[in-house]
């Protein structure tokens, strides 16, 4: 008589399930420690000393941000350049910038932005992705969205749009009025500018590089 095979033994599989689950969970927790250290928000001195952080500090709003191909990494990465005025200033202190970002992040949740738009690609698919919205050429000096609002800077144009979205339709599908105040709009634009500075491993690909290619222009 042969012994019962371990492969048909329920206890063997129960133990295997426990070990596999435990091992996967421990690996996840270990990776979480590593990732948490890498995604913690940077500081103002990081920015001044040229220390690259995956999520820069809030004072990144004092700088020009671009999205450029990195030959080393094989995809685009946000590049933080020289100083750039944001609502007329480029000297926001860590505290002031932090308050603006806090207001904007709260606003993004209080207005349910994520239920129409995607942020970092997550959310609703009813409206454009906002991950790199700050870098969208349409909001730039030659852009149609900036021209539409009649404002002279990117940040003022975005803030104006956010306060009166249904006055500036860009498609039959419009953004509704969400009661966003001037102060909240400023916070939201700061939040969007900070968002565009996050290193997203090259997502979205070719952002803003191919304007109007579909129409053969």
């Amino acid at each position, binding site marked *: 008589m042969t012994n019962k095979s371990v492969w048909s033994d329920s206890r063997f599989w129960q133990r295997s399930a426990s070990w596999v689950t435990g091992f996967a969970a421990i690996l996840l927790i270990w990776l979480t420690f590593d990732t948490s250290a890498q995604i913690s928000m940077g500081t103002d001195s990081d920015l001044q000393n040229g220390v690259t952080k995956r999520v820069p500090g809030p004072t990144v709003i004092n700088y020009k941000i671009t999205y450029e191909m990195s030959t080393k990494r094989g995809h685009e990465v946000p590049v933080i350049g020289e100083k750039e005025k944001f609502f007329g200033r480029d000297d926001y202190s860590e505290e002031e910038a932090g308050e603006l970002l806090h207001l904007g992040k709260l606003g993004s949740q209080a207005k349910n932005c994520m*239920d129409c738009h995607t942020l970092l690609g997550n959310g609703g698919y*009813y*409206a454009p992705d906002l991950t790199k919205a700050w870098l969208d050429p349409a909001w730039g000096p030659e852009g149609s969205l900036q021209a539409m609002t009649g404002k002279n800077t990117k940040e003022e144009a975005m803030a104006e749009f956010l306060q009166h979205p249904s006055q500036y339709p860009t498609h039959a599908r419009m953004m*509704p009025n969400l009661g966003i105040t001037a102060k909240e709009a400023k916070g939201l634009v700061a939040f969007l500018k900070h968002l565009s500075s996050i290193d997203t491993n090259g997502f979205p690909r070719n952002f803003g590089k191919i304007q109007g290619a579909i129409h053969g222009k």
Partner: protein
Amino acid sequence: MANNHLTGIGSESKQLATWYLTVAAILFGAQLLFGLVAAIQYVMPGFLFEILDFSIARMLHINALVVWMVFAMFGSVYWLLPDETGIETIGIKVGKLLFWVFTAAIVVVVLVFLFVQVGPADETTIWFITEGREYIEAPRWADIGIVVVVLGFVFNLYATGMKGNRSGIVTVIMADMLAFAGIYLAGMFFTDNITVDQYWWWWVIHLWVEATWEVYVGALAAYGLITMIGAHRKVVEMWLWIEVAMLFGSGILGMGHHYFWIGTPEYWWEIGALFSALEPLPLVAMFIHVLYDWGKTQGAQEALGKKTSVINNKPAFTWFVLNAFGNFLGAGVWGFFHTMPQVNLYTHGTQFTSAHGHLAFFGAYATILIGMMYLAVQGTNGIKVLRSTKTSIWAVSMIAGGVLGMTVALTLAGYVQVLVSRAQMGATWAGYFDGQSGMWFSQAMDWRLLMGFVTFLGFLLLAKDLLTTGKNPVHER
């Protein structure tokens, strides 16, 4: 005594189960209704503009989805607990009280979503109106309430499991529900760092739907096979442990596929690709498991010269088999389509995700939970063999056909979005709307709406069947 528990007559636990399942069915209807509003808005953007905007309709659509499934999951546990443990559920009075607390809280949250909608950019909005985080928008006060209710539910489960006969199925559910409850805590904080925010947000969303909920479905399928076709418990429970090993083994680290583009390090590409590519495997196993056991028990009966079916609940078993197919197809195949980072770079955040979401939530969860509703109808009416009626066949065909139709339409829309908005136009505002304006995209959205209506009509038939079939004389009593 055991017989009483089996029939569902005289068991308070089973009575509570029917309450949970009833509210679940109502919320399922609400989910479909708000889904229809959102689908209409894709076709007619002016529909309910600045009254019930897409953001609100969609928020109600996906929150009703999550909540009805949680309700049906709780109800199913209260239903199977007396059968598995052989005793009445302990602390059932507390369980019943918490049911009313839970239901009242959900009603308040929904009313606030509907009529208040948004708030000023401060903490009071997060506490009392909306947290604005997809799927778990419920404000903080409700989060705390949900934790209290879930702790009560877990207490009922543990007290009963430890006192009564703790079967393999109950053991799996006990471990799984503790993880399910604990993970919710990861979604209850505010941070200015959106990368940290989304990192932990996925702990709730992913570890629910791609780990703990799947294991729960495995346990339900095991219970269903034993009760509906008399499958051998030893075989079923061994399969269940294998499924747990495979589901948690792939699903926990499969979370990496949500960490490709949110600001997290590159190593998640490899981890996410590897483990999420393995995620369909347990779903194949579950599929084989259900069909194999069905064939095996039927064959054994026919070998004894009996030609009758081994199934004692036709509509419920139909939904369970549909679960085996739908889970593999919706979660497995449609998930695998876009889980590789090379592909996901372009498909992330498009209608592709939406197509996968529709078929996966339906295939993996809605099907089996509707099956549990039919088991409850059978039990509470003391029916030996519950047969399919014309209505139940039309209901399942229209719902499954409708969801499949929506999925195909959304997949086509996803292709347009990937090719036009992403690959050609580089994901800008203008590129987004170029994709949305294309003929292929808008026709896909017309089909999605039509298929949504088919699904909703199917739901009405399902509701009628669940309410009336218990009294139908065709069943064997």
